[in-house]
């Protein structure tokens, strides 16, 4: 990708500062080498930019609901659901980050400031962090975080292995109708549990949500016992959202994990994110839950 990061000169002014051409999903974009005011319209990427030490001036509503961002959103404006181009222009950004699925909006954003569209499942979270670091010339910050993260994971891994052994772990959310079973590539702490910690998924979860499909699979209540592991991280789709009585049903209550008290309610917003800040929060929650 982009031919970036030459010298690390201190860009003094955001406008008229050095730029380079970055190859994004929406074509080649001329972006500042050292962006000073970034609006992150794709909520999932907020934490990446924060970790890289970049000044984010605007982010969508969801970001402010993430418990792991507590105290980390000072000075950031809430841009709502991410449809208001006027709110974005009001923040006077020098770089805008959006998802390709924000579609028609991108053309307008490009008129406000250089806009980088990202395809949300193209890279896994570590690769994405490195890509953003390359884009903003902050590789050192990414390396530093990754080193710290590896250490944290290693420490958690030995502790958890001791407590859990080869037992299986499930991650499940429900919107009141279907139950979603997550694999390793769709947020919800999946990358931590199955990749970093190397914990076991149930056979069916592995088949349906890890080896195939977009990273999750939706099942009906009857199928629940076939998918459920010995430990379950569970929650409704949104915070305070309807769980459709799934957690009250007899099928649920008869699961081994439930009977043994091995069910942990995850925060649906906090576990939606996959960025470094949220990962740390999730790892802490997972470790605490499994070694209790």
């Amino acid at each position, binding site marked *: 990708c982009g031919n970036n990061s030459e010298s690390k000169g201190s860009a003094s002014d955001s406008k008229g500062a050095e730029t380079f051409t970055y190859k994004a*999903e*929406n074509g080649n974009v001329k972006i500042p080498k050292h962006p000073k005011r970034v609006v992150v319209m794709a909520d999932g990427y907020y934490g990446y930019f924060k970790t890289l030490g970049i000044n984010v001036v605007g982010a969508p509503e969801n970001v402010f609901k993430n418990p792991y961002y507590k105290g980390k959103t000072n000075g950031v404006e809430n841009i*709502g659901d991410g449809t208001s181009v006027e709110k974005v222009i009001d923040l006077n950004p020098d770089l805008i980050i959006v998802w390709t699925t924000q579609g028609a909006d991108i053309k307008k954003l490009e008129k406000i400031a250089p806009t980088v569209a990202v395809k949300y499942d193209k890279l896994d979270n570590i690769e994405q962090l490195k890509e953003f670091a390359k884009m903003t010339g902050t590789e050192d910050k990414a390396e530093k975080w990754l080193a710290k993260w590896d250490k944290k994971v290693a420490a958690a891994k030995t502790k958890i292995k001791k407590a859990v052994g080869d037992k299986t772990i499930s991650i499940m959310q429900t919107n009141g109708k*279907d139950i979603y079973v997550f694999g390793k590539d769709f947020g919800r702490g999946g990358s931590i549990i199955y990749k970093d910690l190397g914990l076991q998924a149930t056979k069916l979860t592995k088949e349906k949500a890890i080896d195939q499909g977009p990273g999750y699979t939706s099942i009906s209540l009857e199928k629940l016992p076939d998918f459920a592991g010995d430990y379950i991280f569970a929650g409704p789709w949104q915070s305070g959202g309807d769980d459709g009585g799934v957690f009250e049903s007899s099928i649920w209550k008869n699961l081994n994990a439930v009977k043994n008290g091995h069910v942990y309610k995850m925060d649906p917003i906090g576990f939606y994110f996959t960025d470094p800040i949220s990962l740390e929060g999730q790892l802490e929650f997972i470790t605490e839950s499994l070694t209790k």
Partner: protein
Amino acid sequence: MKTKTNKPLIVMAVTFLLIVVVFFISLNLGVIKIAPLKTLQVFFGQGTARDELVLFEFRLPRIILSLLVGAGISVAGAILQSVSQNELAEPGILGINAGGSLAVVLFIYFFQGSASDLSFFGTFMLPFSALAGAILAAFLIYILAWKKGVTPIRLILVGIGVNAGFNALLLIFQLKMDPHDFMQAAVWISGSIWGANWNMIWAILPWIVILLLFTLYKARYLNIMQLGDQLATGLGTAVEKERRILLLAAVTLAASCVAAAGGIAFLGLIAPHVARRLTGPRHQTLIPVSAFIGSFLFLLADTLARNVLAPSEIPVGLVISVLGAPYFIYLLMKAN
């Protein structure tokens, strides 16, 4: 007392004035505050680049698209209500919303993942697939309803059937989508025009203007058709032929609106009703008044949708329903 012939003119003048008022309010309202005087300056080329961008690229296209789509859907509804001799008819019964939505969902489902240059592909192909889907659905309904001509009641019954089928398919594909694509599809289906731009306006403007004029020209046939097939035939109208032509006009009108604004429900039902209550059933006045009321309601709804929860947005289709429903119920109660 005023004579009856003056009333439609007054109604038209009043609704037009209302549109002008909402037009200026909408232009001035938004996250970025631009004083009315400054707005004028921008129009005379004296504003800042930023204000120009906000007014000409962000707000004005939305406003104009609102007016066009509002008029188009309402007139399509007016035509359908007269042609089908059914007061509950609206563009939705010809499968236009369901067909358009299904096409959009299929498009997102099958192509989104593989499309590399998405901003181009998405903005141009999405409306186009909606148009194709809407017209295909209408065509299917017409063919299935055909039995030596198409009677209004068959048309409506087949329409309901095909709609149900399309909606079922829609649901299946939506459930199989991943959440990101699903959100995009959901926003589109409930109707939203935040993607409004000048290209879109130039694409649908000619259709809507030409078809509105054409419908006005056909107003006398609509007057006669309202009397029922037998009477209309007795009066020397080629009912089947005129019906086909008018249906085609309604479908094209509504389909271009669906392509531009997504599935806007309800407006096509209420605008003609309100117009009829205000001016009576003569189509020479019913058509223009429907168009005016549709434009007014849509623009009002979009202005609210954009500002009530700013910087978040409410789908405009929902606002129309919230605005329209109470007045509609009031009208129906008054009629009894």
